[in-house]
């Protein structure tokens, strides 16, 4: 199982504080939404992140993998 860089997009702008709950991921606010980008070791970790989303009541807009370097 290799690690991948994932990009998760949530509806609504999240503060950096909340972003810290997804440790290891960078937080970027775009108009009305938030992008979380980071290296995810394996599927178990990914599902942990998704559960975090659900627990916070966030609406998940998309989940993507990114090739190469993580975007700033």
């Amino acid at each position, binding site marked *: 199982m290799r690690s991948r860089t994932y990009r998760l997009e*949530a*509806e*609504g*702008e*999240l*503060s950096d*504080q*909340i972003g*810290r*709950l997804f440790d290891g991921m960078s937080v970027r*606010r775009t*108009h*009305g939404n*938030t992008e979380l980008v980071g290296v995810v070791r394996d599927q178990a970790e990914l599902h942990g992140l998704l559960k975090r989303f*659900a*627990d*916070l*009541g*966030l609406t998940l807009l998309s989940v993507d993998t990114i090739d190469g370097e993580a975007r700033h």
Partner: protein
Amino acid sequence: MARAGLSKAVLGGEGRAVADLRPTDVLPPLAEAKLAAPRQRAGMVDRPRIAKALEAGGDAALTLVAAPAGYGKTTAVRAWCASSETALAWVTLDLGDNDPVRLWTYVATAVDRIREGLGRRALQRLRLSGISIETAIDELMNGIAGYDRDLTVVLDDLHTITDAGCDASMRYAIERLPPTARLILITRVDPPLELARLRARAALAEVRADDLAFTSAETRELLVDRAGLPLNGDEVEVLHRRTEGWPAALYLAALWLRAVGDPHRAVHEFGGDHRFVAEYLSQEVLASLDADERSFLLHAAVLQRFTAEVCDGVLGRSDSAAVLADLEDSNLLLVRLERREWFRVHSLFAQFAATQLAASGPGSVIDIHRRAAAWFRSRGLAVEAVEHSAAAGDHDVVADVLTQYHLALIRNGGSATLLRWVRTLPDDCLVEHPELAVAAATAATVIGRLTLERRRLLHLASRAQVDRPERFGVYAEAAMAMVRAAAVDSGVGQAVSDGRRAVELAETGPDDVLVAARASLAQALYFAGELDAAWDAASRAVRHPDAVRCAPGYAFAQATLALVAADRGQMTSARAHAETASAVVGKLTSSRSWLGANAAVAIGAVLEGEGDLAGAERAFAHAERFFRDDVATVSHTRSLIRLAEVRCQRGRLDEADAALREARDAIVELVDGGTVSRSAALVATAIARTRRRAGRAALVETPSEAELAVLRLLVTDLSARQIGAQLFVSPNTVRSHTRAIYRKLGVRSREDAVARASALGLVR
């Protein structure tokens, strides 16, 4: 689950000094709070629309209420139940219920509360190891069908159930609900229950986020009518649009706007903002509180569960009761729990509050956890103490508390909980706490299928014996010998030595281990073929004045007594012992455990002796399944041999061969299997003899097609009536075909017919 139970009982003695609290007090495994329908919260808006939707779903067997956190699912269902006339069985599920036996025990108990006796047969079935869960569910459905009025079963927090066996059992149950009953499932995640199929059959009613979201009108009712906010139509609409009707957000908004100076401006700013709604509102609400209340709430959110007393103690105050009373009004922030006097902060809000506190300095959160841990510990509330210490990262404190309470946990079904916490501790910590390492090894043994983990833990304890002899006392040594004996890791001969050593050490002082030590010795002696000595050791184990409280050891010893009695042909005695073992296991833990497997072997031996071969095979199969591990073990090998033997008796020779082959492969790996080689050889001979006997008589005449059809079903457990139902003929026809088959195959019994048929290749 051991969680609520453990603290509950200790709480019952509020005010007792630590010295009075015996860490080994016996506690009721079923937590009452899970069976109580949640109290209705005051100040919630009526949702007649939702009640109607729930009412309309009454014709469907299953109603699914699925939405994320904060949508008022539980509130809505609770309100509907109260207003309708239905009899109600409510179970709030949690992580500890991820076992079909546990899950359905709760459901059956709740049903039984409606009218005593409705769930009794199901509960009886559930207590017997090795009985399929489907049988128990059938009994429960029969019980429910016997109640002639409408009955509703509600399962709340279904999303905590992730076990595949539980899912399968629920699918089975849904298909068999009587017409007067309905099942309401409340969850945050759609369960894997073939919903599409149920939808197509109109057997499913749904209430989802869209339904639960507040409409504009309901939003107006909440904000203007209830909260008294002077908002106009547009402003209400801004709030409705921005929150998308999310109830939790709207209740937060109501709180916030009631406190601000200029609600119109606040709404306007909110409307133009893009921040995630829940965070925005949580922070605004926090900002609207006075400094003291805010600080109180932020710190309380870290505590997870608390009373006024806890808050006073941990936060260094004396007025928590008053503050809580004030805050309770805003019942979205604070939720009162079923356990009297206890509260928690609403989970959604708590998450945002926690990050707020963390921002002001990471040390502050850890500090609260530390103080909470110390406070809970001083009151003997072990579970909370461990949770907070773990959250603070204080491994040593966690280890200390677990060591102190390990017996209470193991004796009250908390083995899985104990092991879960121990896994978070670094090796060095366990070497400093060898008693805990051994306790965890015991827990791993009771649960089963954790041989490698147990060996690792025992290895750490051995290291302690060498490196930290001052921390490795007689108790640790006795317990370690006991676990080694029970696990039989180094062969049967060594297990007998370990068992004797354990008993010897336990007799000199640490009495707590004595029952388990004797039980382990008994098993080892039994495996070595020394029946009399095994009987003696096991009898002493159960005669100990404290035997019943030492539940795992007691069940273990009873199972061995049953096996010895069965070997001696004393079936009445064997049955009594086997049933006792089963009952204890049923109350203590899941039948799908090592302990459960032990009880299952005992039951199997009894059924075999009584002639119920089908039942015996089922029991042995259950045992085989739950003895199976990453490495070969004596228990598993023996269960395979028993399985082979009963299959041979039933004429299922190919299956018998398969089990025996597996057993022989395992024997090669065993260091010293006791009597297994001998037993395997005996079964091999029996199989060969049965094959010969089956093949000896010449085939008198070939059976007809119709007779072959019956023959194929004779190899199963079905009765003549059931076979007739499958083949669309009368039971009498089945019987006459059967007689013809016997004549043509030259046999006189069903078992022989099966054996002969398989030997001749007439059936696959």
